């Protein structure tokens, strides 16, 4: 019996649920402005989220997936990225998309059921959200391969949920990223639930980070409610990728505080008590406490921020609601670069039919 390989999974965190530093913070976190920026993005994300739910409840938005409680993962990872890196988000990374430069109006437009919402004016090469769970992981490998082949120092950042780690396409994508040493970062946003299926029913693996062992590259855990830890871990993985050392899998441990989507009723499968416990760990309060204690964040600062976020969100919502409807021709006109002759008649028929 010979030992031929051994592996270890580590977990990192810097600011605990009480808002206390548990050790030395990474360099970037010494800068108050950076911390405030991270905080602002998280608050904006939460404000946006609440508005989206309100719009859905009043019939002005389609089914929507709330990111409540997961803001640190989303904001932290995107904040670590360089502008010309590429984000491949799941359907719950509104925070990351906002940090990347997707506008709130675009997000409303998409979730309002209009393709124009995925035609981002800002990050032109970021991928649209991926509804089929995990289906974007192979795209991330492809994008990373494109960067590697062109010798660009860019990284493809792919985010998916705990449930997605059970999917074969995610595994295949991670495996090829490993063997081709691709500049990719995979982030498992472990919010403990895949709709009603809890994390423990998804896999016997003790951590999701260890899924990387099968693909032959490093995996690590991070406290996903600590935005400093998320940003730090992702920055490290991005550096590794940019240096040509290949991919990393980061499991960010957080909790889905809301329903799965606006058509879900989480009370069918989990109790309020458990959720209540997790409210004590959520990412925004802890960073506020830390800012207050260490950087003189005041009540006034807080109120100003909340008010700015609120009015920004309202403005975006109004822009969304005021938008002219999409031209119906878009159904045909974006299908191919050039509409094949045989479809011209169908297009005509559609237009003739009217609304």
């Amino acid at each position, binding site marked *: 019996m010979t030992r031929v390989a051994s592996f270890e999974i580590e977990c990192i965190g810097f600011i605990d649920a009480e808002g206390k530093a548990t050790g030395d913070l990474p360099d970037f976190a010494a800068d108050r402005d950076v911390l405030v920026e991270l905080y602002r993005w998280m608050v904006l994300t939460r404000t946006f989220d609440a508005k989206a739910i309100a719009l859905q409840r009043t019939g002005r938005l389609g089914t929507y997936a709330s990111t409540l409680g997961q803001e640190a993962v989303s904001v932290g990872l995107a904040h670590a990225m360089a502008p010309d890196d590429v984000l491949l988000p799941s359907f719950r990374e509104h925070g990351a998309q906002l940090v990347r430069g997707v506008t709130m109006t675009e997000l409303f437009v998409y979730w309002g059921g209009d393709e124009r919402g995925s035609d981002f004016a800002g990050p032109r090469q970021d991928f649209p959200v991926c509804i089929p769970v995990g289906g974007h992981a192979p795209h991330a490998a492809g994008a990373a391969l494109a960067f590697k082949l062109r010798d660009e120092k860019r990284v493809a950042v792919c985010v998916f949920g705990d449930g997605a780690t059970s999917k074969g396409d995610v595994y295949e994508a991670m495996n090829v990223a490993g063997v081709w040493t691709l500049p990719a970062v995979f982030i498992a946003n472990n919010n403990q639930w895949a709709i009603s299926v809890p994390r423990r*029913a998804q896999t016997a693996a003790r951590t999701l980070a260890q899924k990387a062992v099968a693909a032959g590259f490093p995996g690590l855990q991070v406290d996903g409610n600590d935005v400093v830890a998320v940003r730090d871990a992702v920055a490290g993985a991005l550096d590794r990728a940019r240096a040509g050392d290949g991919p990393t899998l980061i499991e960010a441990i957080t909790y889905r505080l809301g329903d799965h989507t606006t058509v879900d009723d989480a009370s069918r499968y989990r109790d309020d008590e458990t959720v209540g416990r997790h409210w004590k760990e959520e990412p925004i309060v802890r960073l506020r406490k830390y800012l207050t204690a260490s950087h003189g964040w005041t009540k006034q600062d807080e109120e100003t921020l909340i008010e700015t976020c609120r009015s920004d969100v309202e403005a975006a919502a109004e822009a969304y609601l005021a938008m002219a409807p999409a031209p119906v021709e878009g159904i045909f006109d974006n299908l191919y670069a050039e509409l094949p002759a045989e479809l011209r008649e169908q297009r005509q028929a559609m237009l003739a039919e009217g609304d």
Partner: protein
Amino acid sequence: MAAVKQKNKRKRPKRDAEAAGLTLVDAINRALARAMEEDETVIVLGEDVGIDGGVFRVTDGLIARFGDQRVLDTPLSETLIGGLPVGLAAMGFRPVAEIQFMGFIYPVIDQIVNHASRMRTRTRGRLTCPMVLRAPYGGGIHAPEHHSESMEAMFAHVPGIKLVIPSSPARAYGLMLAAIRDPDPVIFLEPKRIYRAVREPVSDDGKALPLGKCFVSRKGADLTLVSWGAMLKESMEAAAALADERVEAEVIDVASLKPLDMGTILASVEKTGRCMIVHEAPLTGGFGAEIAARLAGEGLMSLLAPVERVAGWDTVMPLPRLEHRYMPSVRRILGAARRLLEHG
């Protein structure tokens, strides 16, 4: 397989609702429960089919009644959901697997084409595959991207399987029982637009309806309207509108796309000479093509007018804001009916 905490306190549909009849969701739920009761090899599996009762509640209450050994929440692994039942079925179970939305069924095609459909013929009958694969499908409920497609034609082309699509609660009940009892793999697609659109009395008597048979939903001698699933609704509405103009449309619910009961359709067209096929799926390569092709073959001599196909456009299903411009409407059906009637 984890222990199930019985949190779900919501009650069964109330008595008075039941008196008003069952929805399609209720009917399938009853059929599943009935099949599980009469045959302990019947088990249900899929994503969120357990305590959540499925995202549309089709499996609501089954885990409470039959336990977590017979109602299994799988990991989020569609390929597995296609392949696991093949192993179960070969070893004597009758699994009923759910794919949460048809938009996520494509990874399963490999298992259906390469394994489920041919286990019997590959082994000359030594191992078989009595499984049912359920999935809600179709548009019109303003669902998110990838949740509204109709790709039944892909399955209709696969030898060795059966393909069933119910159009009403009663038919759903009887066809589901038949699908589960069938000794071969059955794909069972559920038109989610009409999951709760109508109620009708359904007696939970364990009686199956035959697979491989069309239903004549309305009699008529002037033209034949062939459809399935949710589009039966528009087809029946169009037929009613035509009746106001003294045109009697015969409406046929295909119900079993594979095997196809072409006899019933041919008999109708022999009588009417005019036929239209209505489906939500894109026109080109949709299952309407197969029916029209058979009419162009064996049915040609009956045709008094070109066969009309009213279908989804050959485009990607638009997001909710424009999906109504994609879905075949009563207006589109009536337009085609007029063209049919103009002839000869």
